[in-house]
């Protein structure tokens, strides 16, 4: 291996002198970043499964809070990873100024992979966060690109860990205050580095220590999590200075993702001519009065949005299975519910497996008649089910 001497660098070249940066610090922050991305990939794939389950493995109906938990973790972890990645990148910023920029084809490929990793990680986190804010300043389809970029990011993290494993092991084995300083010169090429000359102690930090950096960053990131997670850990809402959603401010104590006005159903939903059409072996239709006379049950199911907010709610309505049976179906039927919404990505959804038995066609929410923004006159609500799949403003139920 040919070593490039420091003197061969261009005369004017950035020199990083801060003793705070160290492979020991990077290994600790980087490991956490890697774990966070793995958590986000796992919970993200579970979320995609909600939208396209295999028919032989339908979503379970219990625990009722399963999706609420996994998606809350997904969004809270993603938010926390934004500053975490910034700290990680800050800790290795001098590596950008290694000289020569490329010393072999292998080195060039590694730098290229890091460029793609950094860019996809930053875009993944930014667009995921903006999605939670309902802000879409890009033309591409968020859902599919977010999933595919997730594969790319985690794939490149695995590659990065594979390439850097000796450094990671060194970083974890070294004591945080004593490990080599990370500068634009690799320690293996620096004759004055502590690891190369044991009698040379690593330079002491003059102000904030490396541990201090971890504590301060942890306090900041912890504050972000604590003040934002109230949008899904509902008892923490009073602390929610950075909460994107506030469940207490939604109609009937539950936020709404799409209002009746946005769905263009305000008049249709409140029309006196409203009927629920049920298609199946025995087709029939029900008026609102008919529905009121059917036996109703109550249930506590959370409403969980893919964007990371959720709220527990008390529902009252007709068991979906009751409506299905009257049409000649049973618990093994595949049921498609259709909204009055003229168009829209989620104007229909399919209920199958254990959720057919567990689902309600709700008419009341938290002790009141459904608000029109919550799907008046009738909506689907099922446990462990992504929010938009609980179709609102139902006009039709198809039993297959």
């Amino acid at each position, binding site marked *: 291996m040919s070593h490039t001497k420091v003197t061969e660098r261009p005369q004017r070249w950035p020199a*990083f002198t*801060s003793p705070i940066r160290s492979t020991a610090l990077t290994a600790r922050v980087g490991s956490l970043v890697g774990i966070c991305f793995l958590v986000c990939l796992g919970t993200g794939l579970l979320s995609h499964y909600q939208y396209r389950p295999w028919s032989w493995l339908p979503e379970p109906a219990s625990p009722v809070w399963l999706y609420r938990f996994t998606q809350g973790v997904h969004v809270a972890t993603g*938010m926390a990873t934004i*500053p975490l990645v*910034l700290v990680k990148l*800050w800790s290795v*910023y001098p590596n*950008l100024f290694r000289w020569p920029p490329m010393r072999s084809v292998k080195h060039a490929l590694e730098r290229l992979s890091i*460029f*793609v990793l*950094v*860019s996809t990680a*930053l*875009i993944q986190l930014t667009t995921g*966060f*903006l999605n939670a*804010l*309902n*802000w879409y300043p*890009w033309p*591409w*389809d968020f859902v*599919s*690109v977010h*999933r*595919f*970029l997730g594969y*790319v990011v*985690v*794939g490149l993290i*695995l590659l*990065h*860990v*594979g*390439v850097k494993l000796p450094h990671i092991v060194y970083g974890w084995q070294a004591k945080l205050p004593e490990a080599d300083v990370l500068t634009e010169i690799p320690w293996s090429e620096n004759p004055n580095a502590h690891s190369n000359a044991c009698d040379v102690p690593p330079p002491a930090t*003059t*102000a*904030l220590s490396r541990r*201090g*950096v971890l*504590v*301060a*960053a942890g*306090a*900041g990131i912890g*504050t*972000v999590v604590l*003040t934002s997670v109230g949008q899904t850990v509902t008892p923490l809402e009073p602390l929610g*200075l*950075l*909460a*994107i*959603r*506030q469940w207490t*401010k*939604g109609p009937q104590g539950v*936020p*709404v993702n799409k209002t009746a*006005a*946005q769905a263009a159903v305000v008049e249709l939903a409140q029309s006196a001519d409203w009927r629920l059409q049920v298609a199946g072996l025995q087709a029939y239709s029900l008026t609102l009065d008919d529905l009121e006379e059917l036996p109703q049950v109550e249930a506590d199911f959370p409403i969980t949005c893919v964007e990371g907010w959720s709220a527990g709610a008390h529902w009252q309505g007709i068991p979906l299975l009751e409506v299905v049976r009257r049409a000649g179906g049973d618990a093994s039927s595949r049921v498609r519910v259709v909204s009055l919404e003229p168009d829209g990505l989620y104007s229909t959804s399919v209920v199958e497996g254990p959720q057919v038995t567990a689902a309600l066609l709700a008419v009341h929410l938290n002790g009141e008649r459904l608000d029109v923004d919550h799907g008046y006159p009738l909506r689907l609500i099922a446990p462990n089910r992504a929010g938009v799949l609980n179709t609102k403003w139902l006009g039709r139920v198809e039993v297959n």
Partner: protein
Amino acid sequence: MRTWRIALSTAGILLGLFGVFRLFTETPFSHLLWLLLWLVAAVAIHDGVLSPLVVGIGWLLAKTVPPRARRFLQGGLIAGGPITVVAIPMMLRQGLDPPAKALLLQDFRVNLAYLLAVVATICLLLYALAVARKDAVRSMVGRLGPGS
């Protein structure tokens, strides 16, 4: 170690290529170009603007603020950074959606100011504590006299 490195790298390359393949086969070409622009811009903004800014602030602090005070100033900036990064997009989007969505209804400029004030207060208190402790040690050393 060698086995682990090969296994991790191979799995990573395969997963990454799978993602790239899905991305290229299921996204319209014009959208891919936009995505490419975003990806390059993200690195350019991070490496070319944000990082030099942070390094510059650190350099300026090292030049102007004595170590003991600098420690708490650095800590405060590092703790305040994550809060600010998350709050800025919220400030830009607050109040734009129908109230029923319960989305970004707060004034995040005020909330950010509260949170940063808390961070600043904690840092000031810790700094004051450090100064008081040093003074206490100094006066104790003074009472015991030189050479003790």
